[in-house]
């Protein structure tokens, strides 16, 4: 007899096999992080229920059981290895095993060269991810599967992590997309993450076996895998117990049950977890704290029978919808806090209906709406004003502290903070990918540990040793929490530790502050999360400053909107709000149609909302084109001009054959150079088109590193495109150095741009059938270049001569210069035109490849839609003289950023917005430096992080906040 235990991240499984390896006993239980207790419990039960188990050999598997196993004298078996043993025993002939667990995703290739893969540092595509998504959709996990079966279409959703996916799903929900379609899309995201992230170029074929909780319980998820892999995988009986069975099969030692149960019960890990000082020294300190915070109080008044003028404010946020009715004296007449459940229109309608029900005579003077759902709500209900969230929050904060210097709002899924300088919003921080840690984060933990959020948070208040958990991804926090528990931390310590980590996340990751002086001493905190006293205290403690939190901290957006509508009203006596009245609500109809725009290559997915009376509202668009049916004007947007300019380098028939150039990374700038070079040499130069989703997917399976930046990942698709075209020569050189533009200390490319051809060579098999030409070339040394280029090209084209290459090189350098001068001339025109018409100029800065529409997601168009002119960093970088930076200025592209920031600082009519690709290591350095250059000169720094998929809602908030801060909105 053999016994195996599998301690997963959320559950414990136990399996007993008889001597014929037949499963004779099994159990599956959630452990709520009470790992040791559960092990003891299960072992006791098994001992009572299975005869003869005392003589069984025992082994333990599962990451959460690692330390316990060792100290209790049970053999440990790595879980992937256990799976493999079980699969080989129970389903001989299995080629591939796909196993999804709580926090892990694994693929095992059993036949044709054993390979085992586990997800690395990013935990997307796992059970935890699916859990998070179900919470977001507000459906139980089981229902998610049922919903998905009813899907009609699928959307593209990033599955890298919950934060990313949320930013994709939320706008879809707000725009009225069907939950069934979203459920299916979530499953597809999981599939694509698993296949792309773990297969890494290896084909998944033959007999596929699905294991683990999510794949066992969700048949539609299996279907999605089947469809993508074009196979029919099996989910065997007992699929949940494979790891446990594998451990049993690997076991070789019997144990003394009572002794082990005893040891497990007394198990204390190393006992030394890092901790912080307690939040409160004693009860007295706590009482003082409560008393102080009770001062910021909004008075309430009965709505029923209220005769005065009323103001309505609504905040349609990402996960919650808040709405208030204020009296003319700013008292709260009515308020409502609702889970958005994906349909803000329905919620606001019911809110208004309730208000009219309670007070049918209500005299509404004005109204305003803010938040993600601003546009749709404003349209649906004819709200008087729509305002950007930051303005709403600022208006509210001012009400409690007129000289407020810093506002921080931590909501369910968002962190928003801004500084106030001279009465205007000066600097905005929003949380981004890989900086989760908001309210829902605490909620998730509370639930996982079996508590309500209120009880859980309160437990932390008097914790003696708040655990130091750092500040990173929620999923990894899970493992750290489990470790701390094993090391003896109490629930109280963990609760306080989590509150602290929320604060640290906000301070050090989102705001990047180190001392209160950077924030200012006058701070207002708000958002539902700050209603949690432990978080509030942790914030004050960490920053060493006393802050103001009102009793309506969770409603501040709506409150601010109402106040704003009050401020805006000119005639407080007689004004009449345009907001929907009861009659309108009675006949309210809302239909949704989803379609693709198709008017340009962004191909936005449009949600067309039609309201009563034929009123239409289109969401999901980046520009005005689907509404006006007119192409946006490109003459104020250098990004469009660059694309236009590059598309002029068309293939010219040549005597020497065809050269293919992948249109990615540095090619976005060097295409003119190489096009001219090879065209002069008699080659027909074909380049892949600008990126789109399809191109990305073509190469997705061959990406070896899931943490590399998206622009690099796209390169795989471009190479595949060229291969599919049957092009016999692909040219993609390695380049340590770029041109020296005299702006910095050196002129490197970043390692990824410099050497990505190596990755292509080593990971894309297709290139072996053609000439993949990837010499190391140095265009920075024009004198040496022809000779060196000839040396490396002669291998492929023996009849090239030095004379020819010299002439071609000369023309190439000239072409590159030409390209740049055309660019700068147009840039100057845009700037001049803007100057003449008093228009603001946004210097949208990044890298040359950020003009790729698939990379920038149409952000340039979105920005120019705000009636501003858009130029790029390379247009203005030449206008700035070389200057000294506080960092080593050694990359050509980045030197332009610093120069641009320096130049922008000299002009009142220019603002810099920096595009940053997620995963760009170099930008950890450039963003801080660009920010410092700008802030030194009292300019606002705006950063937009972009990745595979980007939430344009957040981008809009940033841009609108920026424009309103400089008084342009």
């Amino acid at each position: 007899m053999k016994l195996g235990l599998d301690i997963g991240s959320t559950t414990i499984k136990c399996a007993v096999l008889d001597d014929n390896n037949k499963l004779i006993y099994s159990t599956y239980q959630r452990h709520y992080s009470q790992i040791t207790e559960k092990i003891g419990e299960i072992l006791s039960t098994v001992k009572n229920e299975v005869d003869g188990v005392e003589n069984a050999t025992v082994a333990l598997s599962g990451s959460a059981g690692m330390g316990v196993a060792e100290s209790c004298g049970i053999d440990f078996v790595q879980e992937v290895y256990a799976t493999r043993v079980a699969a080989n025993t129970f389903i001989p002939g299995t080629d591939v095993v796909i196993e999804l667990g709580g926090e892990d995703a694994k693929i095992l290739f059993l036949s044709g060269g054993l390979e085992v893969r586990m997800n690395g540092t990013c935990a997307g595509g796992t059970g935890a991810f699916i859990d998070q998504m179900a919470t977001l959709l507000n459906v139980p996990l089981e229902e998610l599967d049922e919903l998905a079966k009813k899907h009609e279409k699928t959307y593209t959703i990033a599955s890298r992590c919950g934060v990313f996916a949320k930013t994709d799903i939320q706008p879809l929900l707000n725009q009225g997309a069907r939950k069934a379609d979203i459920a299916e899309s979530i499953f597809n995201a999981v599939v694509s993450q698993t296949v792309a992230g773990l297969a890494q170029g290896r084909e998944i074929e033959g007999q596929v076996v699905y294991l683990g909780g999510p794949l066992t319980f969700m048949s539609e998820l299996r279907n999605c895998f089947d469809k993508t892999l074009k196979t029919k995988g099996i989910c065997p009986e007992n699929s949940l117990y494979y790891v446990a069975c594998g451990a049993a099969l690997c076991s070789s030692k019997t144990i003394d049950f009572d002794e082990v149960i005893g040891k497990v019960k007394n198990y204390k890990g190393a006992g030394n977890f890092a901790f912080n000082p307690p939040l409160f020294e004693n009860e007295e300190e706590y009482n003082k704290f409560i008393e102080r915070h009770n001062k910021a109080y909004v008075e309430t008044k009965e709505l029923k029978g209220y005769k005065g003028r009323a103001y309505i404010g609504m905040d349609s946020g990402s996960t919650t919808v808040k709405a208030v009715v204020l009296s003319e004296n700013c008292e709260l007449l009515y308020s409502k806090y609702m889970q958005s459940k994906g349909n803000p229109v329905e919620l606001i309608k019911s809110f208004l209906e309730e208000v009219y029900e309670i007070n049918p005579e209500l005299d509404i003077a004005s109204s305003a709406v803010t938040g993600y759902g601003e546009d749709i709500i404003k349209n649906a209900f004819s709200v008087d004003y729509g305002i950007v969230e930051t303005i709403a929050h600022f208006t509210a904060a001012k009400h409690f502290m007129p000289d407020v210097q810093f506002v921080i709002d931590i909501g369910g899924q968002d962190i928003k903070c801004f500084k106030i300088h001279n009465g205007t919003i000066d600097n905005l921080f929003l949380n981004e990918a890989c900086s989760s840690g908001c309210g829902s984060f605490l909620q998730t933990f509370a639930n996982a540990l079996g508590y309500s959020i209120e009880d859980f948070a309160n437990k932390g208040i008097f914790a003696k040793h708040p655990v130091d958990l750092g500040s990173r991804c929620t999923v990894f926090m899970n493992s750290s929490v489990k470790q701390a528990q094993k090391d003896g931390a109490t629930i109280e310590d963990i609760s306080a530790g989590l509150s602290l980590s929320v604060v640290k996340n906000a301070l050090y990751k989102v705001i990047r502050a180190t001392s209160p002086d950077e924030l200012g001493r006058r701070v207002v905190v708000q958002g539902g999360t700050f209603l949690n006293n432990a978080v509030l205290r942790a914030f004050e403690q960490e920053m060493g400053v006393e802050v103001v939190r009102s009793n309506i901290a969770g409603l501040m957006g709506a409150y601010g909107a109402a106040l704003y509508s009050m401020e805006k009203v000119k005639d407080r006596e007689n004004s009449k709000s345009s907001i929907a009245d009861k009659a309108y609500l009675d006949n309210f109809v809302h239909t949704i149609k989803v379609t693709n725009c198709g008017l340009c290559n962004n191909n936005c997915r449009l949600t067309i909302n039609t309201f009563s009376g034929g009123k239409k509202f289109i969401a999901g668009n980046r520009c005005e084109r689907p509404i006006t049916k007119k192409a946006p004007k490109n003459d104020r947007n250098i990004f469009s001009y660059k694309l236009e300019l590059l598309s002029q380098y068309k293939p010219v028939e040549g005597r020497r054959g065809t050269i293919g150039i992948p249109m990615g990374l540095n090619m976005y700038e060097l295409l003119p150079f190489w096009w001219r070079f090879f065209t002069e040499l008699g080659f027909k130069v074909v380049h892949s088109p600008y990126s789109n989703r399809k191109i990305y997917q073509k190469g997705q399976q061959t990406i070896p590193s899931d943490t590399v930046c998206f622009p690099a990942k796209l390169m795989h698709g471009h190479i595949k495109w060229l291969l599919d075209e049957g092009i016999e020569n692909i040219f993609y050189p390695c380049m340590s150095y770029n041109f020296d533009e005299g702006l910095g200390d050196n002129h490197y490319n970043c390692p990824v741009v410099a050497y990505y051809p190596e990755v292509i060579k080593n990971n894309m098999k297709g290139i072996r059938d053609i000439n993949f030409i990837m010499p190391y070339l140095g265009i920075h040394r024009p004198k040496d270049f022809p000779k060196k280029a000839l040396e490396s090209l002669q291998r492929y084209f023996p009849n090239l001569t030095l004379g020819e290459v010299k002439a071609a090189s000369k023309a190439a350098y000239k072409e590159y210069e030409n390209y740049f001068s055309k660019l700068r001339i147009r840039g100057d025109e845009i700037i001049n035109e803007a100057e003449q018409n008093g228009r603001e100029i946004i210097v949208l800065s990044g890298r040359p490849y950020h003009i790729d529409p698939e990379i920038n997601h149409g952000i340039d168009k979105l920005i120019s839609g705000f009636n501003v002119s858009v130029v790029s960093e390379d247009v203005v970088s030449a206008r700035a003289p070389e200057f000294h930076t506080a960092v080593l200025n050694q990359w050509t592209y980045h030197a332009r950023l610093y120069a641009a920031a320096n130049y922008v600082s000299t002009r009142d009519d220019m603002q810099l917005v920096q595009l940053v690709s997620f995963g760009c290591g170099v930008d950890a350095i450039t963003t801080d430096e660009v920010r410092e250059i700008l802030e030194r000169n009292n300019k606002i720094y705006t950063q937009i992080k972009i990745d595979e998929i980007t939430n344009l809602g957040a981008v809009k908030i940033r841009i609108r906040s920026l424009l309103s801060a400089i008084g342009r909105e």
Partner: protein
Amino acid sequence: MAELKYDKNGRLLFTKEMKDEGYTILAPSMAPIHFNIVRNVFVHSGYKVEFVDTAGPEIAQTGLKYVHNDTCYPALLVIGQLIHALQSGKYDVNKTALMITQTGGGCRASNYIFLLRKALKKAGFEQVPVISLSIGMEKNPGFHLTVPLIRRVLAGLVYGDVLMLLSNQTKPYEVNKGESMNLVNEWTKRLTDEFAKGDSYRPKEIEEYLDKICESFARIEVRKTPKVKVGVVGEIYVKYARLGNNDLEKFLADQDCEVNLPGIMGFALFKVDNRLEDIKLYGGSKAKFQVCSVLFNYLEKLEGMIIKYTKKYGFTPPGEYAHIKKLVKPVIGYGSKMGEGWLLTAEMLELAESGYENIVCAQPFGCLPNHINGKGAVRKIKELNPKANIVTIDYDPGAPKVNQENRIKLMLAVGKEELEKQNK
């Protein structure tokens, strides 16, 4: 406190007065054996260098506070460690300078020193000068990397490499536990004493010592039971520093493995060779080529000694630079020089070839060159050598040790199975 002087760009200099006033120069430790030996080289030249070897979660916490959180993990740790040291009260912050290396390559690492200065400013230590330990980057009137000093440092690295290699090869098999480490400590003591006097760095002296050192290790009584042999490669800091890799060496030792960490000499050769390759690839000055060649040849000579004496006493010698360079040719081009560049790939190939097929490739989360030379090359390495059993591990402040160890255990389970097959 000495008078604060700045260069034309406003960089605080390490002045002669500071040196004369006996400023303590704090530098982060990395490979403990090597750094212990090298310390006295600096002391001998009049620099009161101290390598900070603190550990614990507060180091990363301090780093997170003062450095951009997306910066690579080594920068975060090193800066966190130095600031933590300054804040500890153990040093007179008005008589302390800091020193870190600066390679000047196209990787983020060249910027550590600037990030450190930014962090010092944030933490209120603007009076603390930072010395760049580099060839031809920043200059300081009070600190000179002279040829004699360089030669002594190189000698220290040679001793360090040899001691590390020998103890790694004997420790897992020694009959009397602790004997190998005792020898390491003994030799470290002897060599540091020598360095304090300024001796034992000349090639002839090195040869004599290597002979004696190898001989002493050969005398350790061992029992050669087959063990899983694991090679470790990676970004240099994470590869060697226990602070950076959650004490990976100890973990592997506890798992009953024999560990092989390719030495620092290979990295030194690689960095000098890059300058030669640059000229070969893109053209450049002949004089510079000559100077670098002299240094390169000297390093190769030292490398030859390590190989000669480890071989002489029956140890597995380190892979010869020229050989591993040849190995990597079909996989990564010689122009890939940023960070550990092609050397990292080459080390994996060499390890797999010499019986250390089980490999941990350690890198900071999001390490740029390792997208190319680490993760990006694994597929090709396995194609060339199907036995290679490689796991790539990311390190950063948020990556829990449990998850890392679990992935390494998976690699080890496969390695163990292979070992059992061989011994059947």
